[in-house]
């Protein structure tokens, strides 16, 4: 499209078009740059604070760059709270959540995308409409159900729904399966391959990019989730990072150097994952967003 715009400008009058172009490019750059710096400012501020001695955090006027870089704040976080445990718990929750979401959503998505049976369209519409239901509406009965089962203070209430085809991920996987040509499976079916064979031997290996997208989104969900742990978890040693920081904050509210060190450590895995998987991330947003 941009190429088209350039061509248009050229036909409109060469000199005028080009002069305007340079001025515009400069303005565009300045605007983009100022915005980018503004957006990154809080992150830079977080990092700088986490590496400062406390008296420099509480100085007026503000000290932008620490006089010396210290890592005591990070070490203190681990001394004051079981932060390593929090990180580990988040890791465990994320991994189990990823597995659940990949398995559950791809099974149902295969059914929606590839198999014909009475009621399929109806079920699909039902699934799509549940995507609109706020968590708040199902929260009370779900909480009662899980507490009656004696699952409070376990990961089961948080993880179990992932294994039963979360609509968003099912939709994502279905859209992906629809883009795979049917011809690929036809020959396998002629050779006597069952639906299970088609699913496991043909579609699954082809779906690695889509599965990776599901994995990344689930990782972000479980790493960030506060509501689930807040409702269901009681013992501190079971807290994931999000919940750990929430409780840490209520004790150490005044110690910003410590809080920023904890926040940096909580955000770092997300930043790393995002930078390395950006392409898949964007693909996922486009599949579920535009085609929806």
């Amino acid at each position, binding site marked *: *499209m941009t*190429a*088209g715009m350039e*061509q248009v400008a050229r*036909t*409109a009058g060469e000199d005028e078009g080009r002069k305007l172009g340079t001025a515009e*490019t400069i303005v*565009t750059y300045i*605007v*983009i740059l100022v915005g*980018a710096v503004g*957006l990154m400012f*809080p992150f830079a*501020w977080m990092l700088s*604070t986490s590496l400062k001695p406390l008296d420099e*955090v509480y100085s*007026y006027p503000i000290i932008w760059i620490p006089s010396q870089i210290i890592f005591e704040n990070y070490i203190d976080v681990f001394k004051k709270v079981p932060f390593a445990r929090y990180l580990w718990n988040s890791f465990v929750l994320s991994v189990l959540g990823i597995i659940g979401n990949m398995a*559950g959503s791809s099974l149902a998505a295969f*059914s*929606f995308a590839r*198999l014909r*049976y*009475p009621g*399929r369209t109806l*079920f699909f519409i*039902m699934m799509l409409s*549940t995507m*609109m*239901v*706020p968590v*708040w*509406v*199902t*929260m*009370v*009965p*779900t909480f009662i*159900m899980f507490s009656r089962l004696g699952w409070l203070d376990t990961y089961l209430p948080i993880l179990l729904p992932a294994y*039963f*085809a*979360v609509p968003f991920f099912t939709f994502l996987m279905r859209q992906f399966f629809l883009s795979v040509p049917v011809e690929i499976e036809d020959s396998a079916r002629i050779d006597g391959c069952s*639906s299970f064979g088609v699913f496991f031997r043909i579609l699954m290996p082809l779906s690695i990019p889509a599965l990776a997208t599901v994995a990344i989104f689930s990782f972000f969900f479980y790493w960030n989730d*506060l509501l689930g742990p*807040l*409702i269901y978890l009681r013992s501190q040693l079971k807290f994931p990072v999000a919940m750990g*920081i929430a409780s840490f904050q209520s004790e150490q509210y005044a110690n910003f150097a410590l809080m*920023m060190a*904890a*926040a940096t450590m*909580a955000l770092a895995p997300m*930043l790393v994952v*995002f930078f390395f998987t*950006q392409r898949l*991330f*964007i693909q996922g*947003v*486009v599949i579920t*967003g*535009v085609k*929806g």
Partner: protein
Amino acid sequence: MIALPKTPRARREALEGYIFLLPWLLGFILFTAGPLLASFYLGFTTYRGDRSWPDWIGFANFTKLFQDDLFWQSLKVTVIYAVGFLPPGMALGFGIALLMNQRVKGVSIFRTIYYLPSVITGVAVAVLWGFVFHKEFGILNTVLELFGVTPISWLFDSRWIMVAFIIMGLWGVGDGMIIYLAGLQGIPTELYEAASIDGARRMRRFWNITIPMMSPTLFFVLVTALIKTFQIFTTAYIMTRGGPNYATYFFSVNIYNTTFMSLRFGYASALAWLLFVLIFLLTLLLFRSAKFWVFYAGEKEETA
């Protein structure tokens, strides 16, 4: 009516279809449809979580709601936030996408930077913003002081707290960017070429081609953003717990507190259903309004 499959092969495929669908079907019954019906029922009771059967009280919860100051406050706060955040959020997000659609050097790095804050969310970010907004030691006031603004007590002044939340929301404005960009790239180049041959200037092309062609995308982003905005929770819970003086007592915070602080399960269910109905009606309203401003290229022109 639904026709039953006739051939053995079709019957087998149908059976397999249901087997693969089973995880979703069970999840749908256990975690969505079942709880949905249950909370609808509980909304008409005084249930408090004990083992006895809930007492049916008819519409009493709902009539009580209308005299409940906290309910009105939470509704007011949520609507103010939505009204204050959605229009600038939509405009800024779209503006950024237009900028990012230019072919300038390093644009992919900038796309990452603009997108990042909308991805990195949650408790840690709320904690970070709590510090950014700090009256004496936060950067926001420091930057504003350069322009001669006296320090603002962002988080403890009920007049400013909503502004603080909107600023924080706008930080994640890159959220719709990816979807806008995909939409922008889907506009056929010929439209622009034909328009400039006809002598249409840039602004004209923007209003008469870009905006109508992007309206379905804008519509989609607006609907999703609206649903999300009405359920804001984590930031409010972490940063203010609904304060100061209930100025950020969002609807979801009210539901959470009613459930887990006061243990009024019946009343909380009524509240939750009201939120659901509200979101549903607003979405419906948007869909109704769509025919006036959303342009679908595949359709014949009827309204325009």
